[in-house]
């Protein structure tokens, strides 16, 4: 860009320190930045949308098995995470509000608290995933034998206790486990195991993508919190805070849809 940009201001306007040279007013800049973030969120809707589409089709095709598989997810943990994330949305909204009123200190603080809630969310997810791995519900590396997915094992576990509720319930020994391509399952058994595995695959893909967005969010929120503490934002210029807020709320909205679709599918089955 030209090195003489500070001289090229139409109408001899005073050049605000936060106004980029290609914009005419702070208002225009704020507006463009906000719209830019909304347009980006539009792409994110379609990005997650592809996974929702796969979920929709497979759920339509394999609804019975999807409901059964969903019952192996822990609704309590899922609900806890929903509450945590909505709390983080509140604190993020408060951070934006503080930046609008010029309260740099609390802008930074609420942003850091938002990250803290986000970390709690990921902590719960780690607990969930660790348990899923432990009871062999992670879709595996290799189909033909080294696979870790043992549907019959999990089904047996269900028969042995009331509901796959996690810690406190014991699962059968590895010796009771059958591979999910074991002919003794029969054609239908193999199909059911594959369909359930598809549910878990979608569950892990969708929640992983969501978690990845949260991690990116932590980095961005952290950077903006740093600048907030430096006093970089003011009532005239707070669009970075507003925009990271928009991003974070979007991440929350994705989870608002993921929770019922993944965790509550089979809850009506009453066991």
């Amino acid at each position: 860009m030209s090195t003489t940009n500070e001289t090229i201001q139409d109408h001899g306007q005073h050049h605000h320190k936060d106004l980029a040279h290609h914009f005419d007013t702070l208002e225009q800049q704020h507006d463009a930045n906000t719209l830019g973030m909304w347009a980006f969120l539009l792409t994110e809707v379609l990005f997650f949308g592809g996974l929702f589409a796969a979920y929709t089709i497979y759920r339509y095709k394999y609804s019975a098995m999807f409901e059964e598989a969903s019952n192996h997810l822990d609704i309590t943990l899922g609900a806890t995470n929903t509450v945590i994330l909505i709390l983080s949305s509140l604190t993020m909204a408060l951070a934006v509000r503080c930046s609008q009123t010029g309260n740099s200190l609390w802008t930074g603080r609420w942003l850091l608290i938002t990250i803290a809630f986000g970390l709690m969310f990921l902590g719960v997810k780690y607990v969930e995933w660790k348990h899923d791995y432990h009871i062999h519900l992670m879709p595996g590396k290799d189909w033909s034998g080294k696979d870790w997915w043992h549907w019959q094992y999990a089904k047996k576990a269900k028969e042995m206790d009331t509901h796959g509720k996690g810690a406190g319930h014991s699962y059968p020994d590895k010796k009771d486990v059958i591979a999910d391509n074991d002919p003794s399952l029969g054609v239908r058994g193999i199909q059911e195991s594959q369909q359930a595995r598809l549910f878990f695959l979608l569950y892990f893909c969708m929640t992983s993508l969501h978690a990845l967005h949260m991690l990116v969010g932590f980095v961005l929120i952290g950077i903006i919190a740093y600048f907030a503490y430096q006093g970089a934002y003011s009532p005239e210029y707070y669009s970075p805070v507003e925009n990271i807020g928009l991003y974070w709320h979007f991440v929350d909205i994705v989870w608002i849809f993921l929770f019922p679709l993944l965790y509550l599918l089979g809850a009506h089955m009453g066991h």
Partner: protein
Amino acid sequence: MATTEHSTHQPAPLSLYLFTFGMLMFLTIVTILAGFQNFGMWSTPIALGIAAVKAALVVVIFMHGYSSSPLTWVIILASMFFLTIMLGLMLSDYMSRGWAM
């Protein structure tokens, strides 16, 4: 100067955010309770409907939708429209596979 849809950037009252948070908590409880009911074929639309209300609260209040430009709403509605097209037309293929000719 480029036309901008200027809306006031006055911060909303704190009570509005707390109220929204309360509503979101309430609706989360409703989601879970509804999930345990058996509404037959209506289970999914009900669950999605409640989620949509929650999402709307987040968009309108937390994301300042209430003071956003019409263009912002075009973007929001476009995302819903095209997502519906993708899911709807794909599903229509799968749902009509079994129909007799």
